[in-house]
């Protein structure tokens, strides 16, 4: 038996023994997710146990080195772990921006001390992170940011304001872009720093969205002291870190949308909800035509995702390809949700429906933000024109 086969059998047995029953419902929504952190209240004993047991194995971040709270698994092993978790419907033990965003950045740019300090608490779900990039009036134009960090020897004093900070009101720490040199050209003079949200001078204010929820905040910094030991990478080179993470994030978002097409197809939903004619076709022929095009594009997009992920696994550097995925994935997803609304008709227009609390219309509205956050569709197109097509002045 190969080592991988052995690993699979052991993993299956461990999961079978250790995954609490209520953590096996396959739930993946933001609402059921464990976010961890200082302020977290576990929704059940099972959720708490599950996080503790997985963290002890290093399986909350299975590919990270053991020194930093991971299990040092190979890609193949990590895939087997994922497969086996999916097989029993196991939830993720927890998730936050520390895992998906800061972790990769620290692994690439952090000092040994920074990794040892920050990565293990992330792995154990003890600290929840948020991201401080966007500023009011800057939007997609990250390079023009104005939050100021003054050099005070061993620390900085930070003043300014961020916007679109996801769950800033619930986060423990923030990774944040600040300007350390006001003379430098726009992309230069920016630094990447980490600090505790409980530091004096940090306040947050939730932003209500058109979907009714408030996942984002405005975040204000008023003479906030940040130790220099929490500067990641060199001073004035924060842009490198941010760019690396943006590329990472865009690719991730593409995959997220790719996965959404894996569930019930729009056609299936429409056939079920609207009904079919004698030929077995959705009774509204022109709606059906739009559904067909969306399904065609979704199937095509999933082949592209597969191709990109194979190339990435083979070690190819993808660069601006993440913009291709982000652009197409988010625009396609908006189209799919428009069609879900059309399928659902008046039933799904209800905002607080007794059955599902108007979830479909809230999801529909939420998708509008996908093509804005993490770089608008227009910014992605510009990146493609510039970096892939190398068009003049792009």
């Amino acid at each position, binding site marked *: 038996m190969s080592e991988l086969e052995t690993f699979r059998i052991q993993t299956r047995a461990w999961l079978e023994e250790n995954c609490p029953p209520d953590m096996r419902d396959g739930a993946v929504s933001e609402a059921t997710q464990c976010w961890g952190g200082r302020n977290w209240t576990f929704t059940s004993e099972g959720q708490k146990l599950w996080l503790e047991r997985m963290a002890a194995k290093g399986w909350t971040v299975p590919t990270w080195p053991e020194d930093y709270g991971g299990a040092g698994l190979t890609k193949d092993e990590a895939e087997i772990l994922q497969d086996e978790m999916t097989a029993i419907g196991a939830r993720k033990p927890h998730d936050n921006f520390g895992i998906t965003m800061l972790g990769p950045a620290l692994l690439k740019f952090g000092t040994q001390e920074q990794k040892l300090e920050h990565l293990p608490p992330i792995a154990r779900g003890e600290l929840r992170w948020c991201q401080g990039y*966007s500023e009011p*009036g*800057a*939007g*997609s*134009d990250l390079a*023009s940011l104005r939050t100021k960090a003054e050099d005070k020897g061993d620390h900085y004093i930070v003043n300014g304001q961020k*916007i*679109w900070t996801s769950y800033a009101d619930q986060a423990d720490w923030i990774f944040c872009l600040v300007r350390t040199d006001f003379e430098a050209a726009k992309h230069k003079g920016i630094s990447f720093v980490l600090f505790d949200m409980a530091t004096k001078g940090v306040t947050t204010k939730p*932003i*209500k*969205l*058109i979907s*009714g929820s408030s996942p984002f905040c405005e975040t204000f910094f008023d003479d906030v002291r940040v130790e220099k030991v929490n500067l990641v990478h060199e001073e004035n080179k924060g842009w490198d870190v941010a760019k690396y993470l943006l590329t990472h994030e865009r690719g991730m978002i593409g995959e997220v949308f790719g996965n959404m097409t894996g569930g019930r197809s729009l056609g299936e939903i429409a056939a079920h*909800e*609207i009904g079919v004619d004698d030929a077995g076709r959705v009774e*509204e*022929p*022109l*709606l059906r035509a*739009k559904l067909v095009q969306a399904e065609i594009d979704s199937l095509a997009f999933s082949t592209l995702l597969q191709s990109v992920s194979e190339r990435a696994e083979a070690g190819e550097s993808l660069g601006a390809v993440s913009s291709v995925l982000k652009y197409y994935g988010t625009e396609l997803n*908006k189209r799919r949700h*428009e069609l879900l*609304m*059309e399928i*659902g*008709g*008046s*039933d*799904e*227009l*209800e*905002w*607080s*429906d007794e059955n599902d609390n*108007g979830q479909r*219309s809230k999801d529909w*509205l939420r998708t*509008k*933000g996908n*093509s*804005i*956050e993490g770089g*608008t*569709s*227009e910014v992605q*197109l510009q990146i493609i024109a510039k970096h892939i097509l190398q068009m003049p002045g792009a």
Partner: protein
Amino acid sequence: MSMMLNEDQEMLREAAAGFLNENAPVSAFRELRDSNSIGGFSRDLWSEMAQMGWAGILVPEEFGGSEFGMVGAGLIAEEMGKHLTASPFLATSVLAATAFSKFGSEAQKEHHLPKISAGETLYALAVDEGAKHAPAKTALKAERSGNGFKLSGAKTFVANGHVADHIIVAARTSGEAGDENGITLFLVEAETAGLKRSASKMVDSSSFARLQFEDVEVNADAVIGEVDAGYEPLDTILNAGRACLAAEMTGCADQSFNMTVAYINERKQFGVPVGSFQALQHRAAHLHTEIELAKAVTLAALQSLDTEEESAWRLTALAKTKVGQVALLAAQEGVQMHGGMGMTDAFDIGLYLKRVRVAGELFGDESWHANRIADALSF
């Protein structure tokens, strides 16, 4: 059929714009929304509108109306679309007024039309029973019983259904769901025994009702028009509503577009106004073109209904389809071009997106009407 407004109509438009700017800005809609008022509109505002002749805009002068015709009604609906005005205008002054004035008995006219003009009494039209518009699929049963009928079944997506004093109900008196024959229109008093109403808050903060009929008894004189022959009258009533919904969506499209262009011309990114980016300019220019088309088809539909042309139903379907598409595009582009701000509840653009979805769905969405046109053109 003229594609230009006459002087009276121009004056009406200006008056409507002026009144709504003053008395019903979008902030008023927000207040209403946040107050969670179940009625979904301001009774005081409606009284004022009635005094201006809007409530009776389709009612003949002999019954106290201003008899301005569909073009007039559309102008008001368009201005209301721009301001997101919540009012019983569509249900009472367009649908019910058309029902009574075109198909009502003399007694019905004399009783109801003056009440409509005065803005005193509220009406609703109950057609759909499923999530998608399908008047021919009416299944709610009306059986003969004594001197009248007994109604049993359910209706959904009934505008103002929860606050109306009287409800016009499409019911099946013969045939089967799917048949155009065998549908009859009944006027049911809201307080009749056996009728249960529940209000649903919609995504655009408007309120629609679901109705349950359990052996609801009505007299024979509750019939509007003829027994079993209600499909065509119903379609005529619906067409008046559809054309006004198209007008309302034209107003939504126009306003969201203007707001968006103003926003991007003002807002700076990378050191210059966002509106100076050529990619956005071309999208805005395309959108302007589509909105010009929307305005033209809306006016064509309204005019054709006034002159009762044969093609009126088709122009109305065209307007519901085309304007539905354009208004959705305008709102979608509006949100996107507002960037992050477009996602926040603090900006108005999202309100238009929500409103357009609901207005687009009501009385047949773009796909349904487009298919209807194609079927009629035999392809």
